[in-house]
């Protein structure tokens, strides 16, 4: 492929390398460093004039530093006469702050969208946005890829009794996501919702649906501190599930997440590598990873060649 350059930010070098390898390209030379006052400095180490530039940077770890680094890299490429700059953001930062859920709350996802546009991004490639309406926060094209085909593939290949499973949403908000997966596997779904029977009673989790003598697969777009999914797992086991899996696109795993997973009754907690998981896997043997680099690589290839991307919404590249 000619006239294409792929650069990696410092948030997820491993994923960037996998994407480049799949495309048969080398990662572009870039130096990102910090001045003594903690300002980020970026130097693009090769010409990008007239090139189709892709910058891979995920919203994880030191999230504000990584976001600023991405913005500076985009701007550096733009003012160095790149013909098009595409930000590949596997996990979109601030995606949960996508609405005013209380008075005076900022819509930070919209702010991030504006920042990316102002920096000079011409196109965004991301995965499993917390709400697909975030695409509308941009005035530039946004390709919101789905991990769903890769998740389906993993379930069929790794859970022997997948035909006797129930797909479970840990909250009512994820019901649409789980029914999509349940339909494609031709299995049942269930959801867990919080219920208060009396005014002074603490919320209790109520399972709506049947998991008795079945494998229960919890599905969500992200897990952060893992309180919800761990409570849900206990609920499913006490409701008669034989085994409990959790499958998540973005495994943030902050705070007490790892110890909670270790103490919970999960057979496995399966995440994609939109966020680096190596460190967490060392501390938790239950975490397994689905590689989605081939989906991102194929999206880049198709975008660069002017081909349709919609095929990736239901198929997994080998």
């Amino acid at each position, binding site marked *: 492929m000619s006239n294409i350059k792929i650069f990696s930010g410092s948030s997820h070098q491993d994923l960037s390398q996998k994407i480049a390898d799949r495309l048969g390209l080398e990662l572009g030379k870039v130096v990102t460093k910090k001045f003594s006052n903690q300002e980020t400095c970026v130097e693009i180490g090769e010409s990008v004039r007239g090139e189709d530039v892709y910058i891979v940077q995920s919203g994880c770890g030191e999230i504000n530093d990584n976001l600023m680094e991405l913005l500076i890299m985009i701007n550096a490429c733009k003012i160095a006469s790149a013909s098009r700059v595409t930000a590949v953001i596997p996990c979109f930062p601030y995606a949960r702050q996508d609405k005013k*859920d209380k008075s005076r709350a900022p819509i930070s996802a919209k702010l991030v969208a504006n920042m990316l546009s102002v920096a000079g991004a011409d196109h965004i490639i991301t995965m499993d946005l917390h709400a697909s309406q975030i695409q509308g926060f941009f005035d530039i094209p946004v390709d*919101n890829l789905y991990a769903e085909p890769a998740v389906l593939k993993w379930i069929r290949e790794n859970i022997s009794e997948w035909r006797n499973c129930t797909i479970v949403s840990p909250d009512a908000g994820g019901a649409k996501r789980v029914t999509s997966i349940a339909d494609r596997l031709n299995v049942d779904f269930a959801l867990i*919702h919080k*219920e*208060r029977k009396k005014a002074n009673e603490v919320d209790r989790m109520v399972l709506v649906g049947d998991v008795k003598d079945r494998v229960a697969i919890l599905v969500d777009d992200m897990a952060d501190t893992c309180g919800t999914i761990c409570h849900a797992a206990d609920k499913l086991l006490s409701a008669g599930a034989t085994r409990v899996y959790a499958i998540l696109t973005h495994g943030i795993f902050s705070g007490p997440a790892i110890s909670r997973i270790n103490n919970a009754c999960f057979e496995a907690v399966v995440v994609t590598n939109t966020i680096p998981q190596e460190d967490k896997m060392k501390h938790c043997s239950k975490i397994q990873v689905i590689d989605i680099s081939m989906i991102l690589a*194929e999206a880049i290839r198709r975008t660069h060649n002017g081909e349709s991307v919609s095929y990736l919404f239901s198929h997994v590249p080998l």
Partner: protein
Amino acid sequence: MFCVAPPELETKMNITKGGLVLFSANSNSSCMELSKKIAERLGVEMGKVQVYQEPNRETRVQIQESVRGKDVFIIQTISKDVNTTIMELLIMVYACKTSCAKSIIGVIPYFPYSKQCKMRKRGSIVSKLLASMMCKAGLTHLITMDLHQKEIQGFFNIPVDNLRASPFLLQYIQEEIPDYRNAVIVAKSPASAKRAQSFAERLRLGIAVIHGEAQDAESDLVDGRHSPPMVRSVAAIHPSLEIPMLIPKEKPPITVVGDVGGRIAIIVDDIIDDVDSFLAAAETLKERGAYKIFVMATHGLLSSDAPRLIEESAIDEVVVTNTIPHEIQKLQCPKIKTVDISMILSEAIRRIHNGESMSYLFRNIGLDD
């Protein structure tokens, strides 16, 4: 009681802080009922304006009083002729902007095109386009109610107050459904499960979710992910692509997750427009043993044949608010009942004009509402 009128509502509007002008941008007189109720509650008169169609169908707006330096509130309820309604609003907003209004606040109880709020195939995100047009025309603030998706607030570069009708609907359930404690809140599709949970939580009831054959208009089956290009062989697209091992069933059988037997079923949603999916849900709930079926929705669009279909259906009552005028539909179908929400809109206007906090209007509102 979930929604009590604050004492200040009883008093006349405090208009010491600069002038306030209240306009209705509707040329259609049936759409002006809500505006009149709001004006009445605020103790102000409707501003003088003429909105009409030229013989060539262009919209003409003539503002017949000064708006210089004033807070202008433009109330626009959406008529069946939605595109004309939008143009009326935009032209009036722009007229006020170029007439030096201090601020121009749109009061749009039902935000049109709100279902088109995400990318589908190669379509447009129309609600984003509409938001951009409103901001460009000169809107400085928007008051609306129960946006189809709360994220639509992020499409605007101006403040948006997304008021909720749920306290009024909850109050209706508690006061008008005697045996409501034996009810179950039903989501007619997984997409509305969150709303159902929000109602169930506050009424301390259980929930049920319907899923299957009667796909709603927003099903992701119309999204790109279910429409690979029409190509004979997959290899022709790219040699490394793999077809999923199991093709999903076209239509999963209709299922109800949750127990509705021997209960009152209350289906909750934000919009009731084309009623086919509601009728299918009602049939399913009846088969599963529900003995009474109510439908509660904020926006009663009730398009085309909806009133007749509701009248002939298993649904016992459809409860909607007056964000959209539906007097004609009520004449055709006595099962349709209306809850008045002019109180909360007028209070929002009063608070914004007086620079008071809006938080009070969001009490008893959960994160999922």
